[in-house]
């Protein structure tokens, strides 16, 4: 009988993309794994004492140190000569990966620890109440980048976390999404089959923060890819080796219109801002050659 390694009964919101992604990750990784988690929604909804949803060894320390704690776990396994038997996964949200936790991750990658790092990217600090992060997209309405008379939301596009990771020259870097679970599973398997540091950046819709219906999580996630706003790419040792090709190029409105956080972009006065978002999608398509020709 199928027994998930991230058990049900946790307190994630209905439609939570991160809960789905985390279950896929740990199920593929299997029981011989140690999970190190930064502070964030995932740790909060899955470890409220005296309960825990984790059927594998799990440690949460602080907001920014999963990279360093995982380095210690992996070094200990090396010392114990168990490095080949147990996988180490370090996971964090977008803030814990691209902002406050970036230094520790960069250190871990540079030192070459045999750890798979995962970013569950829901594009803002959701655990504290939808504040913008370095992975929040341009013009997103969050509680710290609110839309107002003089603001159309977040002032800058997402940080290119994939290429930052890839620039470390590590064995494998890929983006994935809960919208395409088979592709996600394949990438987890591939990452875990390789030695050294690996990074998997998973796009995870958040119904609460993105303000979409909970039953639309997968649809929203797919549209992020199909509009070119969240390209699915794979790098090996700094080189682009594969992309998820698009048969047609859907306009960004199809993605934006499902989400309250982008509502302001669809008013007639926001034409110029909407065009800037479309430019980002077009840029991704060109940069990574996403369209089937």
């Amino acid at each position, binding site marked *: 009988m199928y027994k998930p390694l991230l058990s049900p009964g946790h307190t994630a919101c209905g439609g939570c993309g991160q809960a789905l992604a985390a279950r896929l990750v740990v199920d593929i990784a299997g*029981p*011989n*794994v*140690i999970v*190190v*988690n930064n502070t964030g929604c995932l*740790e*909060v909804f899955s*470890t*409220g*004492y*005296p309960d*825990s949803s*984790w*059927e*594998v*060894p*799990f*440690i*949460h*320390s*602080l907001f*920014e*140190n999963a*990279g*360093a*704690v*995982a*380095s*210690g*776990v*992996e*070094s*200990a*396994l*090396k*010392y*114990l000569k168990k490095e080949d038997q*147990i996988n180490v996964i370090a996971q964090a949200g977008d803030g814990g990966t691209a902002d406050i936790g970036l*230094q*520790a991750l*960069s*250190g871990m990658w*540079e*030192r070459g620890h045999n750890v798979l790092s995962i970013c569950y990217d829901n594009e803002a600090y959701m655990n504290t109440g939808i504040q913008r992060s370095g992975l929040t997209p341009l013009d997103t309405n969050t509680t710290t980048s609110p839309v107002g008379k003089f603001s159309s939301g977040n002032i800058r596009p997402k940080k290119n976390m994939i290429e930052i990771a890839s620039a470390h020259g590590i064995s494998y870097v890929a983006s994935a999404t809960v919208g395409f679970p088979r592709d996600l599973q394949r990438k987890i398997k591939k990452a875990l089959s390789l030695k050294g540091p690996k990074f998997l950046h998973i796009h995870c819709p958040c119904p609460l923060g993105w303000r979409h219906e909970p039953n639309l999580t997968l649809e929203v996630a797919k549209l992020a890819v199909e509009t070119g706003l969240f390209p699915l790419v794979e790098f090996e040792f700094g080189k682009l080796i594969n992309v998820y090709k698009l048969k047609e190029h859907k306009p960004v409105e199809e993605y934006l219109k499902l989400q309250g956080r982008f509502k302001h972009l669809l008013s007639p006065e926001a034409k110029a801002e909407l065009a800037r978002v479309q430019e980002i999608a077009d840029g991704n398509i060109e940069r990574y050659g996403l369209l089937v020709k």
Partner: protein
Amino acid sequence: MKEYLEGSQAIAKVVALCRPGVISAYPITPQTHIVEGLAQLVADGELKVEFVNVESEHSAASCCLGALATGVRAYTSTSSQGLLLMAEVIFNIAGLRLPLVLTCANRAVSAPINIWNDHQDSVTVRDSGWIQFYAESIQEAADLHIQGYRLSEDKRVLLPVMINIDGYILTHGYEVVDIPAQELVDKFLPPYQLERKLDPTHPLTLGVLAGPDYYMETRFAIEKTMEDVLSIIPEISNEFHRTFGRNTGGLIEKYCLEDAQRVIVAMGSVCGTIKETIDEIREKGEKVGLLKIITYRPLPQEEIYQALKKVKEIAVLEKAISLGGFGPLYTEIKSLFQGKGENPKISGFIVGLGGRDITKNSIKTVFDKLSGKQTDCEFIDLKNVEIR
């Protein structure tokens, strides 16, 4: 074996004898010689350890945390700004009940930047749930590391231990040090074994969320353990004495206290200077003494009170200050006498901040001032310059 060694080299050798499995550190003056010494032992194949050169002190402490939770003994060392950058992890390690041993090469805190010795760094994290020792000599510093691992990993304890050694004075000073044989250390310090660890055969969740229903009990548990530690430390230092033939460590040390009328309370290397000064003053027939605090956390309240209760004039001499308040140790020593009947005159003196030399004359000044008016927070050896 007795060797003439720099303090940092002695500590590196003793740490290696304790057989850590993971060492992780980030360079900061005056801690550097300790980890350089360990790195050389690894490079020469004399120490089998995973040596992780991390990108910050925050990560050094975090890396040790991960190793300890996976069931491997760990070591780190830092100083000053490094300890403060670690502060978040310092609290976390204690909360997770992980037995890390850390050497703090005590140094002043910026700004202005100053690489010389005082105790502001370690005293600032006194509330974190760590056991804190302060060493007077290099030998004591070395011995406290062996005792520190034993104490920290004791199943009744499982709290981290910080060995505080005065930057430069002890880290860069030379002394004849007795470095014990590996067999003796192995006999005294059993292999590291942690019952609750990260192990796929027995999956556990560590570092949980605890709300108002449970958080307070976790803090109470540490406080109860700290009370127990006060009786476990003498037990361990006695066993150390039996094993190695040397009486070091413990809670406090009394020097010329039996008949003393004026007593200085202090921690760390300055106690050596104080002892010499006491010898000189006693030759003139004046009854002065020293109470050296070796264990600052947990604070050995009863031992301190019993040692001082017959003394009429007490000076608390410290290399740290709670700006806007008093010296932290002064506040605590004074509070021990509240409501107990005896009413000694207790004065607070701040000395040696940022490496200002504490001479025998400084100590004599303190003893002289003790006979005068009571003061709460008097700076000794201040220069007459105005700085804004």
